[in-house]
């Protein structure tokens, strides 16, 4: 990372401290706003907007203090039509500094996107298996240390393979997307949800009663049926920490065994 920045941006010395900030930033988005604030302070601007073109995000505008761009009436120019750079009131930022700042911000956003994609499933937007496992281990560790309770729920879609074979992968993907969307909708932000296999999902419900899980599954089923106009079934298994275990592998095994048992009763 250090070599990349130094190699790509020999002029980074124009803005001392920013490269170091990028290395320690908690997120690319935060970094962008920090850069705007620093430039506003250095150039004594009362308002500033950074416009940059990103290969994946397209053109993006960021305004100081995270203000809406639509309220940029204080700006003397229409920032939405400005070239890439940093535009401010009452003045501006010198082109070299603006160019370095924009380039650093583009890299910061690249890093955000890379980090996001390495942790999320592209189809559903839920965590992927690898990052779900990271979060699972962390929850189990905290449960062991502080006695916090949580439930792990594993569920899958009944006869998903037959559904795919009969109606095609396109419809199968749609079902998975609707399930992912409904999980986003139904869960609290403190809960952790992942797609851990083809049609297998897992959730960590913080301090939740297992009695709530059937209602949650009914809600997802209803959403799929309403969106897809077809009937689907789900099977699920639950394990609870810390009462049953605080070992993530054991909790997963318990939940998975109960999922299998639930499927067995349907056959």
């Amino acid at each position: 990372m250090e070599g990349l920045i130094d190699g790509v941006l020999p002029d980074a010395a124009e803005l001392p401290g920013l490269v170091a900030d990028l290395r320690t930033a908690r997120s690319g988005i935060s970094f962008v706003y920090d850069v705007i604030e620093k430039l506003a302070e250095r150039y004594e601007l009362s308002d500033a907007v950074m416009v940059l073109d990103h290969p994946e995000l397209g053109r993006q505008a960021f305004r100081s203090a995270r203000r809406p761009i639509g309220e940029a009436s204080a700006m003397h120019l229409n920032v939405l039509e400005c070239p890439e750079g940093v535009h401010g009131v009452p003045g501006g930022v010198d082109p070299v500094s603006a160019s370095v700042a924009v380039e650093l911000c583009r890299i910061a956003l690249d890093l955000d996107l890379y980090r996001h994609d390495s942790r999320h499933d592209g189809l559903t937007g839920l965590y992927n298996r690898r990052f779900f496992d990271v979060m699972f281990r962390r929850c189990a560790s905290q449960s062991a240390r502080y006695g916090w309770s949580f439930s792990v729920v594993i569920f899958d879609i009944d006869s998903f393979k037959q559904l795919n074979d009969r109606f095609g992968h396109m419809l199968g993907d749609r079902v998975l997307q609707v399930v992912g969307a409904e999980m986003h909708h139904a869960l609290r932000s403190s809960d952790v949800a992942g797609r851990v296999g083809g049609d297998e999902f897992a959730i960590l419900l913080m301090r939740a009663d297992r009695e709530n899980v059937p209602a949650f599954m009914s809600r997802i089923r209803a959403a799929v049926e309403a969106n897809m106009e077809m009937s689907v079934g789900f099977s699920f298994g639950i394990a609870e920490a810390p009462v049953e275990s605080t070992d993530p592998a054991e909790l997963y095994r318990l939940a998975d065994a109960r999922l299998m048992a639930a499927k067995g009763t349907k056959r």
Partner: protein
Amino acid sequence: MSVPASSEEVRLAPLGDSGDEDESPPFDALELEIRRLPGVVAVGWHRGEAMRACLSVGGFGLSALRSRAVQLARGHLDEPLSVELSDVEGVFAASSVASVRIIDILVAGGEVEVRLGAGHLIGTGRAGTGPEGAALATIRALDDLGIGASIELRIASAVVLPSDLGLAVVVSVVDRHDGSEHRSIAYASSVEESAAKAVIEAYELIGEQSRDQAQSAIR
């Protein structure tokens, strides 16, 4: 000296201090996901009675964008989020087309299925095999993405390359907006992938030309 945010505006960064050290602060992660939605070119925040996200967007199915943004917020925030959209369709919107990527191309049973991604969206299209079928499936997948792509296939044809490289695919597509014709050629590991790449390149070429024309109009 920069002007501090008004009382109605919110300095969001400190909220991230409660986040996990391996995770982006929640508002940052949400803002990134919202900025990834097709057409979104700017995001601002207000904290009044409820948190409000103000999106500047470029005419890509506004109601769908609103519900998608609210849906994304539920994954990050426990409090309700209202979404305000301001349509900036036109010059700026023309430059905001998110890159389209190929997720998968499946060929089976005399049919090709093309899956494309753009930001968070996924689109799928199907048609017969061969260059024409794959190009058609790609255009259907672009339509399915809902990003405002509006092109029709005119020609898709395989071209034999020198030596043993195999086949490239040339496509010609028509922009439904103005009837202009755009051509592209691509080479990949299969004829179907070549056709998909060529269609996407032609589509993105239309976007670039729209941007150039818009910038000329400003000058």
